[in-house]
C-alpha cells in the first residue's frame, strides 16, 4: 500500500465529481445569503439579511422547535430501534419472513407518512374513534391533540414510525453477529443476558448506532415535509420557514431563505463534525473488523 499512489484518487473521481456539485450547491446558497445574487440585481456583500433574520424573534424559536423535534424523535427512535433490534435478535425474529414487513416503512416517503399520522392520530383519526367506541372519550375534543399541536407530537410520531425500521435494519444485522458470538462469551463469563448486552453488545454496536442517529437526527432537523403537513400554524420549524421564504415569489427575497438554509447547514455540519470526532475516538477502541 503506497500512500503516494494515484489509483485511489482516480477511483474516487466520479464520487468526488458528484460531491463537487453538491458542495457547489451549498456554497451557492451560502453566497446568496450574503446578498450575492446577480440576477436579482444584488451584488454587494452584506450581513443585512442575517441581522434582519436574527432581529425577527421567530428565528430562535424555529431553531429551538426544530432541534426539539429532531432530538426527541431521534432519541425515541434510537431507543426503540435498539431495543427492538435486541428483541428481534434474541427471538430469532430477524430470520423470519415476517421481519420483512418491518422494513416496509423505509420504502414509504415522508409525505405519505404524514397522511398515515393524520389518519391514525388526529382528533378524528382511528385512535380517537377507538377511544370513543370504548367510551374513553365522549367527543373528539377530548382526545389529546396529537396532530397540528404546538408540541409537534404528530411530527415526532411520524419520524419515529419511519426511522425505527431504518435503525433496526442497520443495527439488528450487526447486533445479531456480535450477540451470537461475543454475547455468548460474556454470558459464559457470568454475565446475565442483559448485562452481556449492556457491557458487550451495545458498546460494539455503538458506532453503527451513532451513525444512524446522526443520519436521522440531521434528516429530521432539515426536512420540511412532516412539520409542514403535521405541525401547528405557529411556531414553525426551521426548514418549513426556509421553504416558505424560498417559495416567496420575489426573487429579491431569496437571500432570506438562504440565510435560514445556511443556518441549517452550519448546525447540521457542526453535528456531523462532532460525530466524526466522537466516532473516530470510539473507532479507535472498537476495531471489530480489524480484529475479526
Amino acid at each position, binding site marked *: 500500500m503506497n500512500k503516494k499512489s494515484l489509483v485511489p484518487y482516480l477511483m474516487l473521481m466520479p464520487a468526488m465529481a458528484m460531491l463537487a456539485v453538491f458542495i457547489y450547491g451549498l456554497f451557492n446558497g451560502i453566497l446568496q445569503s450574503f446578498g450575492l445574487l446577480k440576477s436579482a440585481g444584488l451584488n454587494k456583500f452584506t450581513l443585512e439579511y442575517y441581522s434582519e433574520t436574527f432581529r425577527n424573534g421567530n428565528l430562535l424559536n424555529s431553531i429551538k422547535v426544530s432541534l426539539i423535534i429532531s432530538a426527541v424523535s431521534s432519541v425515541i427512535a434510537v431507543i426503540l430501534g435498539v431495543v427492538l433490534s435486541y428483541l428481534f435478535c434474541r427471538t430469532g425474529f430477524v430470520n423470519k419472513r415476517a421481519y420483512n414487513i418491518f422494513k416496509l416503512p423505509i420504502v414509504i416517503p415522508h409525505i405519505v407518512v404524514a397522511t398515515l399520522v393524520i389518519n391514525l392520530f388526529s382528533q378524528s383519526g382511528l385512535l380517537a374513534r377507538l377511544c370513543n367506541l370504548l367510551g374513553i372519550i365522549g367527543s373528539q*375534543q377530548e382526545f389529546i391533540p396529537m396532530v*397540528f399541536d404546538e408540541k409537534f407530537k404528530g411530527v415526532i410520531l411520524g419520524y419515529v414510525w419511519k426511522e425505527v425500521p431504518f435503525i433496526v435494519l442497520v443495527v439488528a444485522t450487526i447486533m445479531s453477529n456480535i450477540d451470537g458470538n461475543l454475547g455468548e462469551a460474556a454470558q459464559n463469563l457470568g454475565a446475565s443476558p442483559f448485562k452481556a448486552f449492556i457491557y458487550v453488545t451495545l458498546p460494539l454496536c455503538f458506532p453503527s448506532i451513532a451513525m444512524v442517529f446522526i443520519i436521522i437526527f440531521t434528516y429530521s432537523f432539515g426536512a420540511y415535509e412532516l412539520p409542514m403537513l403535521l405541525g*401547528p*400554524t405557529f411556531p414553525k420549524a426551521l426548514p418549513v420557514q426556509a421553504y416558505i421564504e424560498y417559495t416567496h*415569489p*420575489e426573487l429579491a427575497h431569496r437571500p432570506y431563505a438562504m440565510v435560514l438554509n445556511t443556518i441549517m447547514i452550519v448546525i447540521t455540519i457542526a453535528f456531523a463534525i462532532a460525530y466524526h470526532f466522537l466516532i473516530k475516538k470510539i473507532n479507535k477502541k472498537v476495531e471489530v473488523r480489524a480484529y475479526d
Partner: protein
Amino acid sequence: SGSNKKGAVDRTDFGAVLAAAKGTTVNFYGWGGSELTNKWIDNYLAKYVKENYDIKINRVPMDIDQILNKMIGEKQANVKKGSVDLVWINGENFNTAMKNDLLFGPFTDYLPNYEKYVDVNSDEVKYDFGYEINGFEAPYGKAQFVFINNPEATPQASKSAEELLEYAKNYKGRVTYPAPPDFTGSAFVRNIIYDIVGYDMVKNLSADKEEVYNAIKPAIDYLKELKPYLWKEGKTYPSTIAQLDNMYADGEVIMTMSYNPNHVAAMIQTGQFPESSQSFIFDKGTIGNTHFLAIPANAANIDGALAVINAVLTPQMQASKYVPENWGDLPVVDMNKLNEEEKELFTAVKIGKGVLPPEELLSKRVGELKADVVPIIEEIWQEEIMK
C-alpha cells in the same frame, strides 16, 4: 416542446399561429390538487385542442409559487426556451410575475375568441386584484367565496359575521378557518373585514401597514372575540383548506368554506361531504375573483399556448367547465355576446347539490382587494391573532 420558429410567426394572423402550433405540445403548469379540475383539463380541454388544433397538453401539477420560482430560476440562468408554456395564475402572483418581467404579452389581441366572447370592458377582465392586466392575462374562470355547512346537523346558516360568532358560541370548538396565508383562509379574513367594516372602507387602501391596520381594526377585534370559541380555542388553525375540508368530512368541525361555489357539489358527488351539505353566503356578499391564464416571456411554445387559451374561451369549453360534475367553474364569457345556441349550452347545465344559484351569487359578489394589501392583512393576522 414547441417547434415553431420564434418571431417568424405573424401572430396577428391567428391562422398562422394555429399553423405554427400544429403538432406541438403545450406544457400547462398549474395547481393540481383537485381531481375534478385535473380531469377537466385532461379529458375535455386536452381532447378539444388535440382534435381541433392538433396540440398536445402536458399538464404539470405544481403550486403557483413554485411555478413562479421556477420561472425566476430560469430567468436567473438566462434560459431562452423555458419549460413553462402556459400558466394558471392570478392576483398577487400575477403582480409578482409582472414586476419581474416574467410574462409574455400583451397577447389577448391575438385571440379571436377574446374579443368575440368576453366582455373586455368589465372590471373583472381589466383588473386582477386591482392590478391592470393590459393584455398579459386572459380570463379562465370565475370563483366566489362561500361557506358550507350541513343544515340537517346545525340548522343556523349565518347571514353575517355577528351570526357567525353566535354560531361559534353555540358549537364551541367545532368552527374554525384555515390560517392565512392559506388562500381560502386569507379570503375568509377579508370577508370578515368586508362584513365588519364594509368594502368601501378598504377597497382603496394603499400598501401601508399602519393605514391598513387602522382600517381593519374592528375586524381584528372581532376575530379576537371569536378566537376562544374556535377549534382548539384558536391556539392553532388548520394550515390548509384541505385539512378543514377533511375535518368537516369527518365531522370534527361543522362548517367549512371554499373559494369555489361548486366545491360542495363535487364533494357530495364523491361522497366525501354529507349529502345534505349546503353553501351559504353573508347578506352583504362574499368576495369573488377571476382566475387567468398567462404565458411566460421565455415560453418555448407561445403559439401553442395562444391556441390553448383561445380554446379555453370558447363557449363549449366554458360550458363544459361549468358542469358541476366536470369542474363547476363559473364561466367568463359574456352571455350577451352569445347566440341562442351557445346560450343553450349554459342554461342546460344543472347546478349541483348544495350549490347556490348563479343569480344569488352574482348579486352578492364583491371585488377583491389590491393584491399588495393582502399580504399586509395576513401579516397583521399573524401578529394579532396567531400569537
